[in-house]
């Protein structure tokens, strides 16, 4: 890992000549003391209608196999007839500041990037699944596709017997696009942005309304924040997660 000394040139080569997005943040961080970016997402549970547009957008964008999922929407019913309610809970990798998956991996395949992304290095991953059980959000899965079709085999999500999860569609960020899920959300319930930028919509929401993440008591410092709804009574284990 330490064999190659880095020059600015090699960094640019490695990162490509992308002028927007994440690469810029990487470069800044290396050449100045400007703050890192902290990519985050706010889930507005008052707005989420459980339509699964995000689920399918992610499947298509990332070539996720049947049986795997980088994001899903759970639902839970509450109350006694006729005062019954139901709410929806979009779930994905929380890109935790203290991500239990990172320390659980014996192969150092999972890292916290400078932009805040928790990412899996597919070449290092050996499919041990310790990250899968370490994650309290159920956000990591092992790609079940042993023989991917020609037209999907190049998607990282189809790397055979490797762990996979959300990476905020980093390939889209590099093009100045937002993640596929928030891009298609019909009610704008998913808001993506950078918490290091105090003027971003996510910063204003998270700081202004003192938003919390899911299962904060686990000490993971999740970077997906939930607004409204009833996350305090939400129990992922009791929700209908579309898995029978």
């Amino acid at each position, binding site marked *: *890992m*330490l064999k190659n*000394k*880095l020059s600015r040139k090699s960094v640019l080569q*490695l*990162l490509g000549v992308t002028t927007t997005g994440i690469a810029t943040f*990487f470069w800044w*961080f290396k050449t100045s003391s400007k703050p890192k970016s902290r990519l985050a997402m706010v889930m507005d549970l008052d*707005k989420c*209608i*459980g*339509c*699964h547009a995000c*689920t*399918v957008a992610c499947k*298509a*964008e*990332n*070539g996720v*196999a*049947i*049986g795997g999922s980088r994001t899903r929407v759970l639902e839970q*019913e509450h109350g*006694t*007839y*006729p005062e019954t*309610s*139901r709410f*929806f809970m979009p779930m994905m990798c929380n890109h935790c500041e*203290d*991500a239990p998956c*990172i*320390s659980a991996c014996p192969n*150092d395949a999972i*890292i*916290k*990037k*400078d932009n805040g992304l928790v990412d899996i*290095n*597919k070449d*290092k991953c050996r499919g041990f699944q310790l990250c899968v059980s370490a994650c309290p959000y159920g956000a990591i899965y092992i790609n079940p*596709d042993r023989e*991917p*079709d020609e037209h*999907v085999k*190049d*998607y990282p999500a189809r790397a055979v017997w490797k762990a996979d999860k959300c990476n905020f569609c*980093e*390939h*889209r960020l*590099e*093009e100045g*696009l937002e993640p*596929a899920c928030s*891009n*298609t*959300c019909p*009610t*704008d319930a998913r808001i993506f942005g950078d918490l290091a930028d105090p003027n971003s919509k996510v910063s204003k929401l998270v700081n202004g309304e003192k938003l919390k993440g899911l299962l904060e008591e686990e000490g993971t410092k999740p970077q997906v924040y939930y607004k409204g709804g009833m996350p305090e009574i939400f129990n992922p284990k009791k929700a209908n997660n579309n898995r*029978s």
Partner: protein
Amino acid sequence: MKRREFIQIATIGSAAIFEACDQVKNESNTISQKSSSSELRKEIASACWQCVSRCSILAYSNGDRLVKIEGNPKSLRNEGKVCAKGQAGISQMYNPDRILYPLRRIGPRGSGKWEKISWDTALGLILDGGEIEGAKVKGLRTLRKEGTPEKFLFHYGRMVGTDYTINITYFLSAFGTSSIGNHDSICNRAGSIARRLTGDVASSKKFDDVDIILNFGRSLIDAGIDHIPIIRRVSKMRERGVKIYTFDVRLSNTAAKSDKWIPVKPGTDLAVVLALSHVLLREGLYNKEDIEQTANVTVAELEEHLVPYTPEWAEEISGVPSKLIEEIAVEYGKAKSGACVSFRGAFMHFNGVQAQRAIYMLDVIAGNIGPEVRRTKPARWTYPFPRPEKPKGQLPIFNGDKGQFAVPDGSVSHQILTQIRKGRGRPELYMVYCHNPVYANGDCNDNIEVYKDTSKIPFLVSVDVGMSETTELADLILPDASFLERWTAEGKGTTDGIPEFYIRQPVHEPLGDSRSFVDVACHLANELGLNLGFNSAEEFIKGACEATDGLREAGGFEYMKKHGIWHDMEARVEFVKRKKINLFSERLAKSGFSGLPAWMSHPDHKKLDRNELILTTFKVNVHTHSRTQNCKWLMEIYHENPAWINTATADRLGIQENDWIKLESGVGELITKARVTQGVHPNAISVSHHLGHWAFGEYASGEKSSINVENDSDSDLVWWNDHGMHLNKIIPNFGDPISGALCWNDTVISVSKVS
């Protein structure tokens, strides 16, 4: 590396961590993400056709492979968003059970044995007839020669935009048949007949500006007919604090997102609506002059009519507390503006036409349907080709039995097969287009028997993308292009009354030997010497782009191909005086029904036995009724449809969550699982549509069809065994006495636990 160390290193910005990042970056690049990003973002603007909402889309391909569908941000309707169904359109196109070649039946109908034939052979059969398994069948040319073009029955499910215009207005008219079946009476017919009887009931208000919505049985944000556009509008309205009250048998997602869910006993929305009107009049929350300018009745007549419909009376029937009815009525009456919305939950009932008419009456009294109409300009294309006259020839099979329905008006679609069975008309060539009547009508087994009878239907042709339950009974199958492989022109209005013109253009060549049927129709017309003036859908749409004022100046066809959408920004919203609407319907009064909307009780609902419940149906947000179950991403989300049963009812019947239960009606029985919930009325048992296919391919039914091409590694990864059940098997083809609309939400069934 330990997490803490990692963070420490990251914080001091050592070279090592950069190396790690860059290494990851580099290594990640060894598996490059091919997706809708980068140079692959070469988009083709087109239009969705997974559901009737028809949102504008952008399609992205990687080389020859279509990889992603997104919403077109230029659309003022769906504003760059598209739903789960739309995005799963890719798997509609590539699904492994797609029909890719013309097929001719070998063996008896429904035996599943097919011979692959050429288009020349297939079109030869349609034009000139020939032999199907030893039996002679007649073709289109013969029917014209014999002077019986009406014996060509064309029965479609989904067909809108210029698909409709070309196929029906031009091709079938020029051919000479008005024997055209639709799916009207299994869809929203009771609502449309209520509107036809009542007149121009367009609101005086802009929907988006109202302060309060009363929703009667409409899954507005689950499965609305304008799915994404209405979701966005309602979402913005909710943010603005608009109150939404949803009356529904079931806690739909719409009900869950409303300010209040008010459960109603199935089939009794009408009672609640009448009582709401009663309270408005009693409390003086109306404008006499406005009502009498708007409708053909006086306030005195309304008062007299509504006297018996007190909130207490309505509570007795519907179970909705009278106090709540009064509160909501007063809130509605006092609001600056409001809107009632409704759909199948309110009107696909025995009393559905009157329920919908009562809803209009409520909005007339509340002043939301007032003397002025808010009129927006429709997105109406100009077609430069002369239209053939509508032909007179029609088989007498579209109205049910004589006198069976008061207002049949030629489209009681679920009775077409019954009428054929009764021998009221024999179609020599029966073509089914984008429709699956076997599955989509009630009483599926009866439908199958009629389709299998070659003496009643000598030549059955199906135009389809998949081997549906109807298509598998056909003699000849024409492989249709999917919606991503064809040309259509569409037009819809937007929130602000701006007409949105848009097109569906191929984002991919038709797979295999499939062809857009609209082009096939043009070809058949040419062969028959019918001069339509155009030879393909593309030519027709090109003509329409150049003939439509404004669009022509903007760049016509080339502009449309590039952008997919054009808006008529010159259009203005107008407020015009309304022609008086018929709250009192002479036609109904003459047919023996109440001229003013009045209570009608379903004869079977008056007394229910201890184990009897009323079966109601619903749609979920990731499927259309019957055509999306070959889409793997959607089936993964929704593949089992247990029966929703109220906790108290389940206790009474000794049923627990996930128990197997038997549902028995007059036409059949089914076994399914119970979903015991606080989210459904105790008198109802509620089951979704969509599932329980026994054909259509491996994702839909769990069984590969005979034409499966095994091109999808995902099919080996399917982790669910349950493909749900199809409740239409136990719902009779019973139409409401006024419109003939199938009473989807009225069937009384006995429920018991299977031991």
